[in-house]
């Protein structure tokens, strides 16, 4: 019996020719990423070395990435002090893949890793962030872990006691209709699988729609795979992956790619035809509470957010600018734009997208996680409703348990900004 993509990655990272679903393995880690919670990892790392007499040095500083993104610039003295401790640690340990609060190389961790070529096909990537699943878009087996688990990786260089997961194969075919895209596909899939339908499993994406999809779209679907509980979402690498890594990430030299075996064993196979898919909305307070946009149009929204690691890339901003050009954000609605990185911000500035959006009345915020997790900017008032291109709508998520969040594509968010109510972009954004 052949191996799934993840089985192949794990076999290579363990120096084995074969691993089977359920095997317990300890793969080598190629990249270990943290953000502000690196401060907690540092604490647990010190605990591991305490009373051992061994000098607390990271196994390989070149394989550690730390990106400040969750609360940038710091919202409080407590955060600022944590960020300062991280800077001191980074300098002491010689970590070079460190992205501080800067307008030239800063941004959200899940955007920085692909942009800087830190992730490659076949890598085992762990991150102290659940949306580390994003990097499956480049053919890595990438998954979220906790801070103590990361401290163990920093000490040892491999991740302990990983059970080889089962895989669900998702075949996606057909051409997206106008105003429908990757975000609608993943929301639809989460609704079908439910929030736990892929718990402890991997989603492996195939089909002509995926092959024709940009890396940006692939990042969106892999990013949100975790909302169905998946350990990881993966697009086996192809020409598009190589083009992205060479032309956007600037990687020189040969990049090895491979796919799953033809006779790989899958736990489940799901077929989706997107040619008749419409815009999808995740309604409060779970991401699997999915409805077609028609069922929620007319719902008044006080805040619209376009951004995050899910949908804050250049094509998302372009989509929003195209819809909002010459229009105005409705009175009584505020619109916040959070580009996923400063590179995207600068490109959107050069292409004029940011001025179109600002002229329409949107507030352009600095790249970072922003209001998505409700800790920094863009909190909601009591009984307010937000419509966002982000990835979670849990109760309390945008900083207020007495508010609600709906999730959607950039097309729906931009069309709704004009009307002030949830709107179907196919209707022309009246």
């Amino acid at each position, binding site marked *: 019996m052949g191996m799934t993509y993840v089985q192949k990655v794990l076999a290579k990272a363990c120096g084995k020719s074969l691993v089977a679903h359920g095997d317990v393995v300890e793969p080598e880690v190629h990249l270990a990423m943290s953000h502000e919670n690196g401060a907690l990892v540092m604490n647990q790392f010190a605990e591991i070395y305490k009373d051992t007499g061994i000098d607390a040095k990271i196994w390989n500083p070149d394989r550690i990435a730390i990106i400040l993104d969750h609360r940038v610039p710091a919202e*409080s003295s407590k955060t600022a002090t944590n960020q300062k401790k991280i800077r001191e640690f980074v300098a002491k340990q010689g970590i070079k893949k460190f992205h501080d609060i800067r307008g030239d190389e800063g941004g959200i961790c899940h955007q920085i890793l692909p942009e800087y070529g830190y992730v490659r096909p076949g890598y085992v990537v762990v991150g102290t962030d659940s949306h580390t699943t994003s990097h499956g878009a480049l053919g890595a087996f990438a998954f979220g872990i906790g801070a*103590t*688990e990361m401290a*163990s990786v920093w000490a040892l260089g491999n991740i302990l006691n*990983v059970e080889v997961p089962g895989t669900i194969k998702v075949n996606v075919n057909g051409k997206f209709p106008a105003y429908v895209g990757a975000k609608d596909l993943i929301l639809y899939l989460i609704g079908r699988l439910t929030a*736990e339908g892929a*718990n402890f499993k991997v989603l492996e994406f195939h089909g002509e729609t995926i092959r024709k999809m940009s890396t940006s779209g692939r990042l969106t679907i892999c990013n949100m795979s975790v909302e169905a509980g998946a350990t990881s979402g993966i697009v086996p690498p192809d020409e598009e992956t190589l083009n992205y890594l060479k032309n956007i990430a600037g990687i020189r030299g040969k990049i090895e790619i491979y796919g799953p075996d033809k006779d790989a064993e899958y736990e489940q196979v799901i077929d989706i035809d997107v040619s008749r898919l419409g815009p999808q909305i995740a309604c409060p307070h779970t991401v699997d509470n999915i409805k077609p946009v028609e069922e929620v149009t007319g719902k008044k929204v006080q805040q619209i957010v376009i951004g995050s690691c899910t949908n804050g890339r250049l094509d998302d901003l372009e989509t929003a600018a195209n819809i909002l050009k010459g229009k105005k954000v409705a009175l009584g609605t505020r619109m916040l734009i959070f580009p996923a990185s400063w590179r995207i911000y600068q490109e959107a500035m050069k292409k004029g997208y940011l001025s179109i959006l600002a002229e329409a009345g949107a507030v352009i915020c600095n790249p970072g996680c922003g209001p998505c997790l409700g800790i920094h900017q863009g909190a909601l008032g009591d009984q307010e409703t937000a419509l966002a291109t982000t990835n*979670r709508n849990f109760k*309390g998520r945008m900083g207020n348990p007495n508010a609600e969040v709906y999730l959607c594509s950039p097309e729906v968010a931009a069309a709704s900004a004009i009307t002030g109510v949830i709107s179907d972009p196919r209707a022309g954004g009246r």
Partner: protein
Amino acid sequence: MGKVVFKIGNDVSTDIIYPGRFMATLLPTETPQYAFADDVEFSKKLRAGEILKGSIVVAGQNFGCGSSREQAASCLKGYDLIIVARHFSRIFLQNSINLGLQTIICPDIEADEGNELEIEPEYVQNKTTGGKFKIVPLPKARQAIIDAGGLVPYTKALLLRRMQK
């Protein structure tokens, strides 16, 4: 034997267990003050010290879904609560095991607040209702970490063994 002090449904996210707005607080010694912060009644009882160690939280499917924030496990560990759920989300379950928070997978559990539960190796017995519910073993890959008392001592021992080689 422990008493069920809190019952909660399916898909309880880490934003419910430990709201995102408290994420600047990191250390396990400081996180318990924000456990279930948005559930005014239960969090008040926790902070007032009215909940005995070894008390039980009963939950539905997919407990701890969402963010990987370890604070969600450390804040509950601070009160030495035991979580009996129909199932857990992967990252939360692993964080719990790593920190020594006791998690019991019990797909058919039926219990209400105030019930007394006995947790045996293979079953949860509801002493109040007489119900008996099978426990699903934790992922085998994690048992060694539980036996070591958590991931910090486990890794420490491994590190020392590697150094001796």
